[in-house]
C-alpha cells in the first residue's frame, strides 16, 4: 500500500503545498513585513530600530497626505464608474447582438493589452498633449484658435487614461454575467407588459449586477495604488497615493513611512469597498 492511499489527507496537503508556499513567500510574509516595518522608526545611525507610531502620526498630521489619499479614492471611484459605464454597452452588444464570432470580438477588445501599459499611457499623452491629436484636430477643424492646455495634466486625463487601460477588466465580467441571462426571462418581461427600457431596468440590469460589481472592484482596487498614469498624465493636481508611496520608498528613502502609507491605503480601500458593496446591495433592493 502506498503512502498516498494510507494517508489520503497527505495527498491533499501535497497538492496544495506549492500554492500555499507561494502565497506565504510572495504574499503573506511581505505583507507582514510591511505591517511590521510601518510600526518602526530608525533611532540611530547604526541601523537601530524601535517600535513607534510616529509614521502614522506623521501621515495624519500632513493634510497633504490625507488629501492625496482622498483624491486617490475619488479618482479611482470615477475611473471605476467611467469604465463600467463605457464597458456595459460594449458587453451588452457582444452578449445580445453579436450572433457569430463572439470570441473574435472579445479578442479584439483585449487587443490593446498586447502592447505595454507604459506605451499606452504615453500614447494618451500624445493624443491629449498641447500639440496632440485632439488639439491639432480641433485646430484643423477651426473650432479653436489655440491649443487647449487643460485637457492634459489633470484629473480628467488620469480618469480617461485609466478607464481605457482597464476597459477589458470591466467588459469581460459584465459580458459573462449578461451572457448567462436566460433570454426567455427578457421575453417574459416583455410578455408581462414591460417595454425595452423597463425590462432592462427590472430584469437585465439586476441580473447582470454580479458582473457590474466584479468590474467595479476589479478596476477600483488596483487603480487606487497606480502611480505611473498620474505621474505621466496627471500633472501636480492629478497625483495619487501611489506617487507618495513610491516617493517614500525611493527618493525620501523612508521605508517605514512608505510602509505606513501602504497599510493606511490598504485599510482605507478595504473599508471603501465594503461601503460600496453595502450601497450596491441597498440600491438593488430598492430597484426591485
Amino acid at each position: 500500500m502506498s503512502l498516498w492511499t494510507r494517508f489520503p489527507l497527505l495527498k491533499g496537503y501535497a497538492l496544495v503545498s506549492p500554492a500555499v508556499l507561494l502565497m506565504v513567500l510572495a504574499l503573506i510574509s511581505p505583507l507582514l513585513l510591511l505591517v511590521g516595518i510601518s510600526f518602526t522608526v530608525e533611532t540611530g545611525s547604526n541601523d537601530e530600530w524601535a517600535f513607534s507610531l510616529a509614521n502614522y502620526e506623521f501621515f495624519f498630521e500632513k493634510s497633504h497626505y490625507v488629501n492625496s489619499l482622498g483624491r486617490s479614492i475619488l479618482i479611482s471611484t470615477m475611473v471605476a464608474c467611467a469604465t463600467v459605464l463605457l464597458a456595459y454597452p460594449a458587453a451588452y452588444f457582444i452578449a445580445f447582438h453579436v450572433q457569430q464570432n463572439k470570441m473574435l470580438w472579445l479578442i479584439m477588445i483585449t487587443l490593446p493589452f498586447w502592447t505595454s501599459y507604459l506605451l499606452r499611457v504615453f500614447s494618451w499623452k500624445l493624443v491629449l498633449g498641447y500639440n496632440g491629436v485632439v488639439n491639432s484636430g480641433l485646430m484643423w477643424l477651426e473650432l479653436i484658435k489655440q491649443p487647449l492646455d487643460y485637457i492634459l495634466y489633470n484629473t480628467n486625463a488620469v480618469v480617461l487614461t485609466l478607464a481605457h487601460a482597464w476597459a477589458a477588466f470591466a467588459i469581460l465580467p459584465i459580458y459573462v454575467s449578461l451572457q448567462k441571462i436566460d433570454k426567455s426571462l427578457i421575453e417574459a418581461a416583455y410578455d408581462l407588459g414591460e417595454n425595452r427600457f423597463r425590462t432592462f431596468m427590472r430584469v437585465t440590469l439586476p441580473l447582470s449586477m454580479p458582473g457590474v460589481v466584479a468590474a467595479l472592484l476589479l478596476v477600483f482596487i488596483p487603480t487606487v495604488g497606480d502611480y505611473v498614469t498620474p505621474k505621466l498624465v496627471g500633472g501636480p493636481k492629478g497625483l495619487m497615493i501611489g506617487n507618495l508611496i513610491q516617493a517614500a520608498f525611493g527618493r525620501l528613502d523612508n521605508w517605514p513611512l512608505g510602509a505606513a502609507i501602504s497599510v493606511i491605503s490598504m485599510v482605507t480601500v478595504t473599508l471603501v469597498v465594503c461601503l460600496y458593496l453595502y450601497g450596491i446591495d441597498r440600491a438593488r433592493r430598492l430597484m426591485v
Partner: protein
Amino acid sequence: MPASSFISIQDVSKHFGSIVAVDDIDVEINRGEFFALLGPSGCGKTTLLRMLAGFEIPTRGEIFIDGEQMSGVAPYRRPVNMVFQNYAIFPHLNVFQNIAFGLRKDRLAGDELKTRVNNALSLIKMKEFGERKPEELSGGQRQRVALARALVKNPKVLLLDEPLGALDKSLREQMQLELRQLQKIVGVTFVFVTHDQEEALTMSDRIAVMSAGKVLEVGSPDDLYERPQTRFVAEFLGTMNVFDGSVHARDGDSYIVDTRDLGRIRAGVGAQEFSDGEKISVALRPENLKIVNSQTSEDIDGSVSGVMSNTAYFGNSAQVYVTLDGSEQALVVSIQNQDGAASNVAHGSRDITIGWSRSSVLLLKDA
C-alpha cells in the same frame, strides 16, 4: 378580412432564412377554448405560438385576437400572456414579486396589488410561498408560479409552451387535471403547445395536429383519434396498424379494399369518398382487434391469422405482437386484462387468428 372567431390565424407563414417553419396556416380558435397545437418537434408549433405572443413576426398572413389585428403590435401591448417552457421565473425576485411583476405597470394601489397577487397565490394553492425564492421551489411549484404570473394579468389568451414537459410522469398527470380545472375556473382561452399526444387528448377541447409547418387536421380529441383523415394523424395519435391498399369497389355501405397483408377486406363508409382503384391506407386500432377463438361471439367481418411474436404486459392491458402469415408485417393487438385474459393469451398457443368488425376499419387518403 375581419375575423369571426376569437383568435383567427389567416394564411400565416414564417420563414427563417431559407427554412419554412410555418407554412400557410389557417386556424380559428373559439373563446374559452382549451386548444392544443400538437406535433413532433420541429413542426412549427412553437413558432406559431410565439407569433401569437408577438416574439416572432409572420413573414406573411394576419393574426387577429378578439377582432384586433396583431401585426405590428409589440409583445408587451398584446392581450396575451405566456407560460414559458422553462417557466422563466425571475431568479432575483421571490414568488410574490414574480407574480406582481406584470402588475407594477398597471399602477395598482398597494392594497389592490396585494389582493390580486394573494388571490393568484391561492388559485395555485401556494398561499404560504410568497416569500420563497425561486431556487427553493420544485418543478411543479415553479410551473404554478409561472401560471399565476400570467393569469394575474387577466389576459384574453393564455399561451402555454410545453408547460408540462419538464415534470416527471406522475406530476405531469396530476398537473394535466389541475390545468384543465384551472382553465374551467378562470374561463380564459388556453392555447397550448405539446408534442405529447396523450397530453393533448386528455386536456384539450380541440387539437390542431401539425407536421412540417402545416396544420393537417383540426378537431376534437375523439374526432381525431377515432376518425382521422390522414395517415400522419392516424399514426401520430396513439398506436395504429397501417397497411397500404387500394379500393376495389364500393358495395352499398362499405368499400371493398385489396391489401397485400390482409387480403381483400371490407370497410365501412366514413366521411371520405374514394374512387375505385384509388391508393389508400388501411388503419386498424389495436384495441379494435380481437383474438378469435371458438368462444368469440362478437361480429367479425374480417380476420387474418399469424404467429404471436411477442407480448407486452401493462397490468390492466397487454399488447400482443402478431407476425402475419405470408407477410413480414407485424400487427399490434391490445387486449383488456379481464379475468387474466392477458396471461391466458401469453401462455396459450402461438398460432392465433385476429378479427375485426367492418366499422372499425379506417380508410385514409395519402397512402
